[in-house]
């Protein structure tokens, strides 16, 4: 029987010895990654590149020297982004509009930053800017949230469509009010380094990682130990049950979406204020699609997502530079990520067949689509 993401139930009906548990853990968590890397290596060979060279470069640029610092810098927004996806997915709400939410949050932060950092004390400016980023990200989920809460309109399509619109608006803002008057390329003004996040202890790492860790750890506590977290889990497991036990379902839907969008907007804020300091038109880092498999691998548990996202941060940071090194298109990483998703699914399937324990793909994931555009009274499933 599959467990919902994050619901902890010790004492399930299968009792395994310690070693079986450790082996099972290794198989489920590490094997998909290993298989994906192996298969992508074959693809590299077909292209005439050396997998060893490529992945060696990944480790070199991602971990060695100052590489690990760059990876941590990348990790900061990913933690918040991942938390945003986790909150929504635990409620079986498929917020796939993350790209639009991220870009809108980011562009408003980077567009308003010059004005705010020059007129206010820096710390205050940071707080206000992060709040703006989070608010914008959350606001961009509001329409899909309300449509779902009131009419049961399936959120996969509404969030996706709005994402495209959000990307368009972002570009308009960059070319319009936020255009850097000093250059001809469509880009916002570049934030001077002394108005961005300070670095930690003389390293390259900015304080964003600390902000991210604090926020996600608090969120983890809320999700796993409080009454709100339980309500979310109940709703995610079964909206019917949620209604039955007295949970205000429409309110819950809206709150989940707003939190999700806000976290993604906050991720963008941290990324802008800590790393980029500017945004070009048509720029889209597409973190969301890339970290989806890791969020699932972590069984939608924030604490567990940290090591997985760290792995991805190294892979992406090292991979971007390694791609250039061997003359490969950087989108190759998408292939690796997709393979992780596939192998993860297969291994989960085998695992379930052999009853190795809890699965990590929420079964409600498929039910969600079955209720696409269905009316509210018909409920889910």
């Amino acid at each position, binding site marked *: 029987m599959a467990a919902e993401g994050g619901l902890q139930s010790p004492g399930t009906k299968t009792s395994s010895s310690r070693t079986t548990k450790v082996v099972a853990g290794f198989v489920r968590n590490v094997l998909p990654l290993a298989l994906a890397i192996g298969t992508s290596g074959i693809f590299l060979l077909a292209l005439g590149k050396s997998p060893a060279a490529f992945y060696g470069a990944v480790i070199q640029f991602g971990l060695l020297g100052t590489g690990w610092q760059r990876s941590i810098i990348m990790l900061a927004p990913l933690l918040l982004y991942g938390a945003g996806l986790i909150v929504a997915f635990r409620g079986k709400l498929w917020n796939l509009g993350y790209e639009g939410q991220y870009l809108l949050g980011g562009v408003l932060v980077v567009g308003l930053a010059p004005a705010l950092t020059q007129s206010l004390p820096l710390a205050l400016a940071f707080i206000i800017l992060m709040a703006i980023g989070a608010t914008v990200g959350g606001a961009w989920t509001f329409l899909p949230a309300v449509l779902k809460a009131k009419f049961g309109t399936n959120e996969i399509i509404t969030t996706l469509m709005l994402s495209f619109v959000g990307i368009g608006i972002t570009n308009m803002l960059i070319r319009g009010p936020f255009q850097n008057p000093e250059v001809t390329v469509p880009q916002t003004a570049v934030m001077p380094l002394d108005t961005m996040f300070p670095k930690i202890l003389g390293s390259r790492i900015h304080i964003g990682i600390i902000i991210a860790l604090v926020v996600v750890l608090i969120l983890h506590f809320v999700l796993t130990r409080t009454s709100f977290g339980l309500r979310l889990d109940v709703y995610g497991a079964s909206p019917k049950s949620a209604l039955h036990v007295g949970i205000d379902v429409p309110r819950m839907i809206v709150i989940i979406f707003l939190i999700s969008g806000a976290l993604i907007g906050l991720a963008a804020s941290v990324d802008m204020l800590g790393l980029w300091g500017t945004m070009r038109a048509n720029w889209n880092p597409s973190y969301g699609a890339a970290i989806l498999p890791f969020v699932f691998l972590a069984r939608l548990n924030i604490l567990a997502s940290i090591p997985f996202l760290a792995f991805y941060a190294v892979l992406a940071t090292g991979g971007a530079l390694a791609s250039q090194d061997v003359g490969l298109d950087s989108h190759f990483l998408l292939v690796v990520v997709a393979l992780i998703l596939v192998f993860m699914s297969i291994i989960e399937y085998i695992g379930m067949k052999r009853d190795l324990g809890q699965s990590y793909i929420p079964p409600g994931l*498929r039910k969600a689509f079955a209720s696409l555009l269905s009316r509210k009274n018909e409920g889910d499933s």
Partner: protein
Amino acid sequence: MDLFSVAFISAFVTGFIAASMPLLVASLGETIGEQSGVLNLGIEGVMLFGGYTGFVVTLVTGSFPLGMLAGAGAGIAVSLIFLVLSVLLGLNQIVIGLAMTLLGGGITSVLYFEHYSKSTPRLGKDEPLPIPVLSDIPVVGDSVFSQPTTFWVVLVLAVVVAWFLAKTNFGLQIKAAGQNPNSLDASGGSVVRTRSIAVMLGGFFSGLGGAYLALISTGAFTPFMTQGIGYTAIVVTMLARGRISWVIGTSMVFGLSVAIGTVIQLTDINLPTDVIKMFPFVVVITVLVIFARSAYVPPALGLPYTRGSR
């Protein structure tokens, strides 16, 4: 450019057709799959595979029909993966679909970068097939009735699909697989076989749609060129509820909004390109909001079938 000149309207209609057709083709495939209870979220990836394969084949052979066929074939091949994982093994359709989208985008992007990023070749225009007499009509003659053969083939295909779903035994089984797979199983049909064929047909059309986009609508392949058409096809499918006439109609509405965007660019109205690009999606959202309550979806959509589970 004079807004109502013959040449202008001609160009408008051509652009409208170019935008609608890939969507129409992809939606046909998605409809067949959806009616059988399978939701392919990887449609963007399949279209990209079809587009890239068709592009390469046409570039090498110079033949457009061959390219279209190759694209359709690639679509079938790729959806076999989806078939094995989601229909046969019963793995989660949404996760596998997302993986396919990523794979399609990633692999075609890497391959294109490898082979063509420096040369960026373009294909010529496909031979138009002027319909005698009709193609002499002013305005529509040049645009509607001088389309390449592929255009007409696609229209015929749409009619065939409509007939297939409504009037054949297999079409009935497809609908049953989506409405109530238990019933189909109890009637002696095979849910797995029905869905497998539906998925492969879906792959055929998605690949074909991608090929149409690359070969006919634009004349070249660019990484990630689908830009959301696949997701729009899903919306079209949902709204059409299996009625092919609606599939055609909704695709045309979308094509219209894209064409209007291009038109506006040519006039003196000073709207930024970003608004133009957003316009179709805004239209889709508006349509969704208005019609959200009346749309209906096969009850078994997205759920893998196992015999004996009731």
